[in-house]
């Protein structure tokens, strides 16, 4: 019964969407604001990767909200899972030598790769979110391979808070210097070089640290707590 009703509901949804899809044919240019970003993006923000300039600069406020959401998820997960009273000490089975050595060798490489990704966010595909996720996967590897190691909860909280505060403070500096929140107040530099695009790389570095520590904190909480 429930299944039949659900399928009927889904058919209605599908028909409705089918109806409206005829208005947005695939593969044709539809955008109005996107064209503006492509044409003026390099000049106005100095970032070669237009997606980065949209994410950090034109729609930077969305990105601020987005890191806030990840922050909420990390805090909320901690609140839901935080243990009451004594922690149960669980048996830790040591990993095999191959896994242990492999993880220890790979971990620094993954960290360097993640950092590369978010520092070069304005030049190549990638940015704070992707780099942060890669760093978090490095920590996941450490949990798998070297189980006796743990990241310090204090350090990860510190990175989360400071990353978020750095984003807000850079935005407020724009307000102080130019009267607009998140204004790109630093010199844009020459496009396609590392030191260009004003505040974009700085914000992406802050995001990278914040996202990396939050995702690592989520994994840590899921594994260790409750």
């Amino acid at each position, binding site marked *: 019964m429930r299944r039949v009703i659900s399928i009927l509901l889904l058919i209605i949804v599908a028909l409705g969407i089918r109806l409206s899809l005829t208005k947005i044919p695939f593969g044709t240019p539809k955008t109005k604001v996107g064209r503006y970003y492509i044409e003026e993006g390099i000049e106005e923000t100095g970032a070669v990767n237009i997606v980065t300039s949209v994410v950090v600069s034109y729609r930077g406020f969305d990105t601020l909200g987005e890191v806030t959401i990840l922050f909420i998820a990390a805090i909320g997960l901690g609140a839901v899972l935080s243990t009451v009273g004594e922690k149960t000490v669980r048996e830790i089975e040591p990993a095999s030598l191959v896994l242990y050595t492999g993880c220890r060798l790979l971990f620094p490489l993954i960290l360097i790769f993640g950092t590369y*990704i978010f520092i070069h966010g304005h030049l190549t595909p*990638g940015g704070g979110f*992707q780099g942060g*996720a890669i760093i978090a*996967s490095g920590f996941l590897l450490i949990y798998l391979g070297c189980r006796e190691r743990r990241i310090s909860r204090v350090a990860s909280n510190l990175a989360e808070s400071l990353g978020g505060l750095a984003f807000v403070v850079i935005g407020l500096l724009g307000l102080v210097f130019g009267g607009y929140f998140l204004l790109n107040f630093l010199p844009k530099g020459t496009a396609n070089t590392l030191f260009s695009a004003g505040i974009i790389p700085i914000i992406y570095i802050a995001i990278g640290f914040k996202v990396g520590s939050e995702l690592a904190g989520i994994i840590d909480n899921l594994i260790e707590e409750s």
Partner: protein
Amino acid sequence: MIFVVSFLVVLMLVGAVAASIFRDLISAVIAAALVSLIASILFYFLQAPDVAMAEAAIGAALTAAIFIIAIRRTKRYEE
């Protein structure tokens, strides 16, 4: 090109159906991760390398990992 894309889309939908059918939740999660992975390849074909990277790193890898951790703390088989 269009055949490769069609094949990937069909494979992706099969993965999604498999995620719904499997009783073993770990298998279902692997099927869902396959869906994410193919979606990230499709993002690359759609000229969105940034998104492809984010989907592969976050959608496929990290999500599957936290699902598996959560399943280890609960129950592996659907009743």
